[in-house]
């Protein structure tokens, strides 16, 4: 009986996890996702009614009174119930669906949108903020947006097909090789939600997640100004020395020191992010140490080479240094 309980507990946990609004398609925090949620409910409830109706008709056709059964077989009920009703219902839903799809599109004419590019990579997100003056600031694995302003995200991929999905704000949009897709949405109020790659993209697909933080416009501007700056000079140089001499800079950029590798996530302000490894480890000194020493088990198949070469003191120094990059 034990395993039955185990399965029950796992199922219950899964369901409870679904109630957490951070990554739920039922928790709409913006106008685009609200319409999608409404469409979802209409579909669910409508489908439930139709299912009940069909069940009732089946019962009648098997065990109902003779005259009801006779009526069901008449040409009239087949034309109205089997042809007119589905055509009308499905056409209405189709038109409604198109309108919902267009809802994000109408935002494209909105003034003063926030321009952000997100590039899907195996298995993380390259995030590029486009400033009004034409400059860009690269970050990774976290999206920061202002509330109330239309957000325009250019979605592309560096390798295979990924799908960008923040359930709380918008529907999923695929990142297709050779194409750039545009996603529009608005966040109504400040808060933190999660997004996830929604198209199987290889080994670590399930661990390709990210936090999205909606901030008040003034907070956002302050954050963006800070994000745009170079990393502050390190207080303790030991960790920075380990970073530079061990080859980390071959793949990672830290603006302000001679580290401009473009292969992996930009680490200039990695200490200020909410998570490590694309939404899978807490952003703490211990989290950094765990990622560096055990990333092949924490996130199997990820493309970073294993670095099992550090002494305990080097690992601590490197973790402290990365944690200090705020």
């Amino acid at each position: 009986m034990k395993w039955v309980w185990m399965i029950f507990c796992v199922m219950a946990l899964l369901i409870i996890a679904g109630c957490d609004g951070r990554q739920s398609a039922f928790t709409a925090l913006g106008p685009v996702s609200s319409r999608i949620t409404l469409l979802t409910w209409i579909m669910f409830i409508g489908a439930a009614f139709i299912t009940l109706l069909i069940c009732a008709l089946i019962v009648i056709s098997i065990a109902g009174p003779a005259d009801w059964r006779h009526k069901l077989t008449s040409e009239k009920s087949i034309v109205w119930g089997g042809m007119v009703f589905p055509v009308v219902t499905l056409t209405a839903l189709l038109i409604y669906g198109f309108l919902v799809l267009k809802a994000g599109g109408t935002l494209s004419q909105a003034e003063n949108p926030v321009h952000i590019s997100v590039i899907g990579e195996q298995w993380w997100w390259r995030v590029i903020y486009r400033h009004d003056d034409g400059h860009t600031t690269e970050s990774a694995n976290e999206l920061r947006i202002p509330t109330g302003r239309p957000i325009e995200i250019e979605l592309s991929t560096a390798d295979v097909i990924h799908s960008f999905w923040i359930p709380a704000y918008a529907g999923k949009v695929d990142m297709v090789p050779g194409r750039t897709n545009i996603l529009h949405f608005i966040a109504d109020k400040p808060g933190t939600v999660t997004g996830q790659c929604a198209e199987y993209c290889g080994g670590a697909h399930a661990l390709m997640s990210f936090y999205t933080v909606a901030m008040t416009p003034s907070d956002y501007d302050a954050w963006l100004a800070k994000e745009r700056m170079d990393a502050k000079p390190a207080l303790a140089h030991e960790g920075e020395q380990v970073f530079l001499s061990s080859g980390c800079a071959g793949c990672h950029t830290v603006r302000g020191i001679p580290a401009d590798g473009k292969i992996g996530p930009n680490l200039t302000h990695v200490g200020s992010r909410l998570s490590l490894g694309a939404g899978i480890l807490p952003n703490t000194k211990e989290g950094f140490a765990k990622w560096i020493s055990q990333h092949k088990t924490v996130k199997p198949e990820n493309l970073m080479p294993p670095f099992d070469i550090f002494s305990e003191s080097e690992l601590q120094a490197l973790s402290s240094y990365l944690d200090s990059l705020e």
Partner: protein
Amino acid sequence: MAKPVRRRLRKLLPWAIGLFAGGIVLALAIAYSGIFNIAASAGHPVLLEWLLTLGKERSVIVNSKPVDVPDLDIAGLVPLGAAHFQGGCATCHRTPGQKLNPVYGQMLPSPPDLKVHAPMWTRKQLFWMVRHGIQFTGMPAWSGDGRDDEVWAVVAFLEALPSMNTVDYLKYASGNSKDIIAAQAGEVASQGRPKINITACSRCHDTDNAPPTSPYVPSLGGQNKAYLKRTLHEYHSDLRQSGFMELIAVELDSEHINNLADYYASLKPSVSKPAQNVSSEGAMLAVHGDLSHKIPACLSCHGANKRPDYPRLAGQSEQYIKQQLLVLQRGIRAKTPYGAIMTTIAKRLTEQQMGAAAAFFASQSPTERTEHKTGEGLRQ
């Protein structure tokens, strides 16, 4: 038609099973009784000798058929093969100008004089025997797992051996190590007859006035001490695979390793002539990497001011670097944490990129490398 045949076969079946079981019982009885004399001194009866030789030769011929023969750089490989032969093979197989040690002469079969026997085999067959060894003969398999590249150096030497005289052989086998001087009687009495020692590193590696004996041998002068120490320990504990280095490193204790690392780190780099054909691809790869294939810049780890336990590559030969990259790509060095880092990157390189990167480092002067500035290779 089919039925009577099947019936007859069914009748024969108990007889067949009986004969088979009887054979097994007989074999067990002979083995247990001990009547078969396995003494090496007893030799083989003529018929058995013929049968064993036939089986051995046919097995080598058949099993070596799938071996792919690469292009062999004979001139580059012979000194390396000769130095290994001296350390690993000569004990049993004798060297030119030397008589077979009577102890090993009493083995059954007696180890063949390869000056005579090597020409009897093809390149493939020689490779197969050196790589895999031969059961019941005392011939061991190659001790460096997966290092087929090293086996080919021995094959190249074996092909050159028949035409070598004693002087040629000693020149190759002793490499840069000191000449063997005829010792005084007193020295012989107290220290033994001087001979080329297996742990004489300069049999292959560079000295203060001579480059390595082969382009497939790394130059050690001026290499990072921590790297040299780590590598010798890795060879010593069978973590890094090499049929050449393992048997030497196993003879060294920690003190030897420490002293040798010190010695080579402070040794002046031997000056070798820079490689000619340096493509821009090699410099690009070394300085910037290849973003589209997720290959970081070589210099981000192998430039100046990097970890002392990472190797310096400037001034190493093109052949050595490329061969190590191929070995890394095949995952043969992934057992060590350092090798595991480079294995990930080597797997992303094409063979052309390996050649280009190797040529770039070969063209760099080993003496100027300390003057590179931090991050010089990283700025774009």
